[in-house]
């Protein structure tokens, strides 16, 4: 591409944040190691140099206090962007998230705004063990009052971050470590894409058909989208033309785009790195089934994480993770029945 400007998700998140900080002096960033270190996942790199330590604030390891503080600051007119280093740590501070951040707008009858972004990393595949590899999308998306964003590439990451910061509602921005473009985590190349320098926003609640197809709809989010695209390539070799849908935001969820795609293809596979049961995959399947069961010409399939804690050892972790081959097998299984 001419004038191509390939950015990693890490850089595109930092760029969007910097642009929003220039636009609005009320935007500031808090979290562990987001200052001089630039964030363990690089998404605040360069910010402290430009904005200083008053607006780029390293915190103690006190997630309950500083996420609660973000809510208080947001209600007082600031626009905090706050980082929970790994989503796995949500258990030490979830009250401040799901019961406070997510509910104060409602409890106040809309009189309080809570314009804040909680960004957090997720995802495994690099042997970081069971307390540092989860995605936990379903847990956040299940509980009302917060928007949930999961970008699959740098272009979306930037536009969704700008939208998140400008939103007067709390937004949980869940980025996947393997897409972050940090070499040390092994990087999905497909996430590092052309990203314009100028500001832009991407609306929430609009899934994107990242590959059109006619035979089966593969629905995913984050890294799942890349698994879906790779599976689509493999399926193509077998003469199967898959459509791949990137949900982009889980709340709001663009059910129409998914439904219309399945209506067209008649077949549905949902990919998710989150634990299988009571989560995203069930929701997508139910969304189609309840709307019109006849849209499904075969039993829909899911390729998700089994209901086990995440094992450390490489062969076991690989076994458990979703991958393109599993998606291809799911298609075969669906057609067998």
């Amino acid at each position, binding site marked *: 591409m001419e004038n191509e400007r390939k950015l990693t998700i890490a850089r595109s998140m930092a760029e969007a944040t910097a642009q929003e900080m220039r636009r609005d002096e009320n935007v500031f960033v808090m979290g562990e190691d987001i200052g001089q270190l630039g964030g363990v996942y690089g998404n605040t790199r360069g910010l402290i140099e430009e904005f200083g330590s008053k607006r780029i604030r390293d915190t103690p390891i006190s997630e309950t*206090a500083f996420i609660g503080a973000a809510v208080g600051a947001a209600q007082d007119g600031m626009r905090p962007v706050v980082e929970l280093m790994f989503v796995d740590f949500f258990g030490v501070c979830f009250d401040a998230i799901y019961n406070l951040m997510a509910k104060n707008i409602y409890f106040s009858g809309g009189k309080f705004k809570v314009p804040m972004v909680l960004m957090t990393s997720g995802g495994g595949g690099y042997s970081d063990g069971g307390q540092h590899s989860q995605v936990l999308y379903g847990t956040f998306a299940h509980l009302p009052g917060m928007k949930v964003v999961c970008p699959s590439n740098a272009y979306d990451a930037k536009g969704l971050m700008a939208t998140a910061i400008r939103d007067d509602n709390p937004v949980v921005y869940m980025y996947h470590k393997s897409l972050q473009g940090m070499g040390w985590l092994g990087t999905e190349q497909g996430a590092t894409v052309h990203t314009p320098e100028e500001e832009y926003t991407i609306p929430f609640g609009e899934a994107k058909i990242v590959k059109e197809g006619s035979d089966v709809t593969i629905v995913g989010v984050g890294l799942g989208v890349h698994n879906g695209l790779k599976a689509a390539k493999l399926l193509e070799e077998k003469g199967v033309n898959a459509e791949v849908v990137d949900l982009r935001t889980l709340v709001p969820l663009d059910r129409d785009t998914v439904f219309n795609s399945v209506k067209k293809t008649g077949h549905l596979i949902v990919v998710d790195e989150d634990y299988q049961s009571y989560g995203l995959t069930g929701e997508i399947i139910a969304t189609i089934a309840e709307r019109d069961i006849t849209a499904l010409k075969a039993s829909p399939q899911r390729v998700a994480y089994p209901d086990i804690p995440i094992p450390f050892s490489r062969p076991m972790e690989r076994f458990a993770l979703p991958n393109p081959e599993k998606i291809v097998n799911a298609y075969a299984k669906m057609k067998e029945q």
Partner: protein
Amino acid sequence: MLPTSEKKKWMYENMLVSRFFEEAMETIYMEGKTPVFNMAEGPIPGEMHLSNGQEPCAVGVCAHLKPSDVVTATHRPHHQAIAKGVDLKLMAAEIFGKKTGLSGGRGGHMHIFDADVNFACSGIIAQGLGPAVGAALSKQMKGDDSVAVAFLGEGAVNQGAFHESLNLAAVWKLPVIFVIEDNSWGISVSKADSTAVKHNAVRAQAYNMPGRFIADNDPIALYDVAGIAIEDARAGKGPTLIEVETTRLAGHFMGDAEGYRPDGELDRLKSKDPIVRMKNLLIDEGVITDDENLQITQKAQKLVDEAIEFARESDYPEPAEALDKVFV
């Protein structure tokens, strides 16, 4: 920092409004709940935590506050809300679950929110501490001299959020005051059975922060100490922890049989009712006469009556309004 006569009068009036409000709650709450007590019934359903006896804690602090100052309150919030200047009618309507309530009935008694006077509360123990720290951070970043106050019970002190919030406030030298209303009970569990120190004010040392203890539910002593703390906070000198020895004159919530109270405790506490003591003080000091007291009392009662009437007469929200205001 001693209160002027005006301030003392304001404090007393405010305490009266608060007490009358709770007395109204007590009566109305039981409507529809006899002969069988069922929390789901009556004009005010759900849990109801009354603040009778704890009024000094609220007025002693809030006497120093302006509307832009932020208060985060507890599950026992009425006295705190009233002292902060939350609109009494709108609050009453909220507690009745009416459309005219502060939040259109979405919040209820444990979720009193008033953006006009920057008041919020929560049903989760110690949940307000983080937000108070954040509001104080916001004030500091904006260069505004407003402060934040977080109220909590002595039981709440043993929640992790207390520790994290006080440390963060101290590290960042934020204009926030933490006020512990120590009524010596967390539901049925006594402070002695739950807390490793005799005085929570001591815990301020863990945060390099002043810790002040106010004995005997004394609104005047609290006014003094809170005044200094708030002045310090406005001047950029950082946070303070204040512990107030107070009394819970009601059950933990309405319906609590209080079998866990030692014999005679309630009588002893009631004999030290802060409303009576405040009245006596003001009369002894010549701040008010008996006549003025009658007027003040009647005015307070009227305010409460009008608020209750407003709440009673207001309409309920449409059921489907439940779906609104999830997002703004």
